[in-house]
């Protein structure tokens, strides 16, 4: 589903976040990316979602060469990818359900159908009682669950999560990880960047360690 072939990413200023990465992730896999901060985890995720472009090498997702995708084609790639951010990136000028419905609005789905699906996903992450609330009134854990709901509402085959439990205490973190396990079980491909070792041992799955722009498999 995802493959990296000799991918190098150098930022302006000379910092090399990734150097000559080779990597294949199959459909339905659950992959953890670990490594100290600045090791290139975020960069790797951004390359998959075409938020950044590689300096050299080829990144492909579902057979599409993402690194050479045109500006116009990028939105359609992203509609098939759910993104979960450490800082949630919620919109505070609208309530919970409007946040979740946004990807479906963008995709041009019928409004009533969109609301129905949004409500189902909100229910799944346990926020149905708060659907009219403003996200700013939610706790950190609830905000992260909302972010996940928004990432999942368009039923993407691939979910990318960058430090999804980074700001959360242990209880909330376990909650979120349990949710990811459920999605993995229904066949979603997940790539999760984290430094939370507890989560990894709890869920199993494949673990990749990034260190100074190099990648290596970690034996289970």
């Amino acid at each position, binding site marked *: 589903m995802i493959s990296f072939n000799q991918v190098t990413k150098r930022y302006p200023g000379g910092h090399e976040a990734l150097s000559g990465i080779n990597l294949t992730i199959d459909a339905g896999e659950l992959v953890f990316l670990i490594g100290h901060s600045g090791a290139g985890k975020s960069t790797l995720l951004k390359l998959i*979602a075409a*938020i950044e472009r590689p300096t050299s090498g080829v990144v492909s997702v579902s057979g599409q060469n993402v690194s050479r995708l045109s500006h*116009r084609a990028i*939105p*359609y*790639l*992203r*509609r098939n990818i759910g*993104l979960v951010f450490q800082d949630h*990136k*919620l*919109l505070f*000028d609208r309530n919970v359900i409007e946040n979740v419905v*946004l*990807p479906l*609005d*963008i*995709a*041009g*789905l*019928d*409004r009533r159908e969109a609301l129905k699906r949004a409500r189902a996903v909100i229910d799944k992450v346990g926020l149905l009682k708060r659907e009219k609330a403003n996200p700013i009134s939610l706790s950190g854990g609830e905000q992260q669950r909302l972010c996940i709901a*928004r*990432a999942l509402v*368009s039923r993407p085959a691939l979910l990318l999560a960058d430090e999804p439990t980074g700001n959360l205490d242990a209880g909330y973190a376990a909650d979120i990880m349990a949710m990811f396990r459920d999605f993995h079980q229904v066949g979603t491909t997940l790539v999760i960047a984290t430094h939370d070792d507890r989560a990894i041992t709890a869920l199993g799955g494949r673990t990749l360690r990034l260190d100074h722009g190099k990648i290596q498999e970690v034996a289970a």
Partner: protein
Amino acid sequence: MIGWLRHQKHALTAALHRLRAQPVATLLTALAMGVAISLPSGLYLGLGHLGRLAGELPAQPEISVYLDAGVSAVQKQAIAARLKQPDIALARYVPKDEALATLSASQDLADITAGLTQNPLPDAWVVRPQASSREALARVADDLGKLPGVAETHLDSQWADRLQAALGFGRTGVWLLAGLFAIALVAISGNAIRAQVLVRRDEIHVSRLIGATDRYIRRPFLYLGALQGLLGGLAAGGVLAVAGAILRTPVERLAGLYGSAFHLLPPTGIEIAAVLGLTTLFGWLGAWLSVTRALQQVEAAR
């Protein structure tokens, strides 16, 4: 197609929502636009009234048609028949005796005419053509000059020329002003939209991350600009209506003193539609320029 319509409806709703959310800013922008537009529109209306007033004035351009001294009765009849055609509004026959009598009646010339032993003046027609444009007048004069029995024609076109030149100057001025204020309109709209884009930076950023096309992002702003322009056009209508209400009484009084029933007329439906359409268009254009530029900046800043 259905998805496209859905997007349009969604964008329009969002734009209306944003306008309602900021009533004061919306009102101020509409007023700024309204005042800017009311200037050229008001001038245009004023010019129209001047043109109408000029049409009502008695001093119409006239053509004097002088007949040959030896003109035959048949020729005279043919000329009279020609002057009954629809391109002639009015034709008055001035026999030479009457012309001489008129001339003698004026004090300055009485001495000269008293010394004449015979009448040197020809019979003449004073003709007022239907058209008043310079070209049309010249054409009619030329035409009449070719009739058998006509010695010469004299076109008193100076007055018409001057009026035409003045109106033409006014019209050019209106278009020039309209062009300038259209630019102002684009600038006002662009500025208002730029502020909106800045406020919505986060939304734009997030929408892009979850697969929004530039078109999707741009659309509500374009509707916003167009609606703002429409409101500006309506505000201009309001400004002009108030100005018209204030000016009506003094204008009618002034006209009354000249014995004229002249009064201010409201603009026609087509004129109103044209102004509203143009302001909407220029509001849209300003929004397009502004949001496209802002999107490029957001892109570059990422």
